[in-house]
């Protein structure tokens, strides 16, 4: 097992009191496996991804749980030990490539800095490694591009460079936070192709954080659906999409325009996600749920195995094993 997250909790100490952004989530990832973390804004999917490398900034902090990566508990590590993992064994790809790359440094400077921080390489070796990695992400004439600045590249090219930065130290796991959201559909398709190809050839694990169900459908082996800081459903990708168990996942899928119902009213989920400051009692989805009863208002459901193999849902209404 590559990554094992157990009972993770993240709390933000706000002036009005502590607020739990991640409430007791667990998931694991095998070597070379791809997992999609899906949810709407505010569901906690990014916080969950960032907490793996402890990149949560004040006033947030990890308030409980364990994160084992290659057998070591990342939460127990000091900042110095964590820095040997960040960008080397685990890399991140962020949403907006213009914000990720430093505008006043050439691509070469930024890329060689990453490898030379972690490994004893001469400048020359690092540079040729950077050129090689740029070639791997299909950047034409990398020998020339390496001396250019980020503003000289198009949006799609920049995202390729960001992927190259994540890739250069040959990590075992990449955490990608909405890597294609800022891009156009045709560019998005190219970047998805590239990520898939690299994950397969390098046997890298991938955690793909996104709001777009159709993107995860094509990219991942498993999906975890998040709602209000919890995983409400987790299972094999096609199984979650074709036989979703939780009413929230079902609602999300039905809300997408579909070929069968062109021109008809869409199935909407009424209301919106509760604010972390005023969580409802019981199941946090109950105010929007079409099939709730009294138990949902009073008790909090936890993830239970359901009748499908390797598939769990947090809902009292889902048939158990």
């Amino acid at each position, binding site marked *: 097992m590559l990554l094992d997250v157990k009972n993770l909790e993240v709390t933000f100490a706000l002036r009005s009191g502590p607020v739990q952004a991640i409430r007791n989530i667990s998931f694991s990832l095998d070597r070379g496996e791809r997992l999609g973390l899906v949810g*709407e*804004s505010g569901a906690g999917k990014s916080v969950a991804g960032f907490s793996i490398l402890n990149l949560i900034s004040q006033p947030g902090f990890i308030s409980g749980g364990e994160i084992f990566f290659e057998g070591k508990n990342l939460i127990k590590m000091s900042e110095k030990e964590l820095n040997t993992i960040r960008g080397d064994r685990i890399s991140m790809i962020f949403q907006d490539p213009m914000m990720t790359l430093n505008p006043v440094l050439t691509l070469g400077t930024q890329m060689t800095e990453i490898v030379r921080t972690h490994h004893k390489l001469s400048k020359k070796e690092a540079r040729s490694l950077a050129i090689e990695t740029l070639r791997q992400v299909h950047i034409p004439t990398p020998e020339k591009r390496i001396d250019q600045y980020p503003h000289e590249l*198009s949006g*799609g*090219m920049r995202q390729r460079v960001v992927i190259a930065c994540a890739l250069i130290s040959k990590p075992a796991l990449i955490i990608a936070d909405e890597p294609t959201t800022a891009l*156009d*559909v*045709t*560019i*998005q*398709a*190219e970047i*998805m*192709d590239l990520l*898939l190809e690299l994950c397969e050839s390098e046997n890298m694990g991938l955690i793909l954080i996104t*709001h*777009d*169900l*159709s*993107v995860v*459908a*094509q*990219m991942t082996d498993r999906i975890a659906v998040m709602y209000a800081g919890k995983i409400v459903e987790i299972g094999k*990708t*096609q199984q979650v*999409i074709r036989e979703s168990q939780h009413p929230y996942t079902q*609602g*999300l*899928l039905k*809300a*997408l*325009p579909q*070929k069968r*119902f*062109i*021109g008809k*009213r*869409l*199935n*909407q*989920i*009424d209301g*919106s*996600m509760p604010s972390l400051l005023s969580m409802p009692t019981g199941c946090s989805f109950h105010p929007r749920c079409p099939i709730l009863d009294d138990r949902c208002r009073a008790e909090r459901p936890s993830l239970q195995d359901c009748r499908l193999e390797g598939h769990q849902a947090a809902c009292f209404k889902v048939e158990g094993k």
Partner: protein
Amino acid sequence: MTPLLEVTNLYKHFDISGGLLDQLQFEGGRIVRKKTTVKAINGVSFDVHPGETLCMVGESGCGKSTVARTVLGLYEPNQGEIRYKGERIDNLPPSKMRAFRAKMQMVFQDPYASLNPRMKVQQILEEPIKIHKAAATSKEIAEKISEVMKDVGVDPHWKNRYPHEFSGGQRQRISIARALMVDPEFVVADEPISALDVSIQAQILNLMMDAQEERNLSYLFITHDLSVVEHIGTRVAVMYLGTLCELSSTRKLFESPRHPYTQALLSAIPRLDEEKPNHIKLKGEVPTPIHLPSGCVFHARCPLANERCKQEIPKLLTIEENLQVACHAVEEQRD
């Protein structure tokens, strides 16, 4: 049937050369003054029929938002004609344009930026009426406000709240309400749902479809989301680099896209039922609208391009009923 809106051969170029000193360049031993223009729209023609939803799709920078804004008179076109119910509106003085503005309203993309944060919902909603229907009494206005707020699903009791007290979806409802206050015939919606979450997107799309049915509205719907287009569009116009490549009925476009760019664009949509991405790969990158390619703007990336495409700009030709394509390859039936 006379079209509601007719746009003929529209051009819009923006001068971005800046001040005099920015324009000076050193060339061949001399200092020359050069202007830089962004050629945002180049000869676009289309019409909108009463009661239909015309969707305009394309990637960022293709000029779809500029078309929307030019149609409503927010930008002045460099060339071309815009007619509303047969009357030319692109060269009207502001005083005469006002009557048309009451009939044509706009919904913007970002509900956080398009509502004035210092105005209460009531003030936001009464402003269009005060401008366009000066004779309305305050009682009439109050009634209209609560009627429209109910229509868009916002509780009229909240009219004294400020925009920041509402969620993104609620705000977009308020900005749709603002457009509906003056009972328009034609609404231009510029990416009205792309800033919203999936479950909220469905709410807003339903609201817009309901409003269309009840009020017999016509929409010009600008979006980059093709699955939404397939759902609500009567016809679709596909734009690439400031020109129209294909204009056809939604069903025809999604069943058999003709233009090579439309084909690539449709194949790039990720689908829930596909386990692996499977799309047509385009070579190269979108050129900038500052230096437009000669001939067909798509020729450098097109798999079917030949010499003619490099020289001659293709015209939007009617291939069959409700299907217009601007492509030499389609015209010649090249394979």
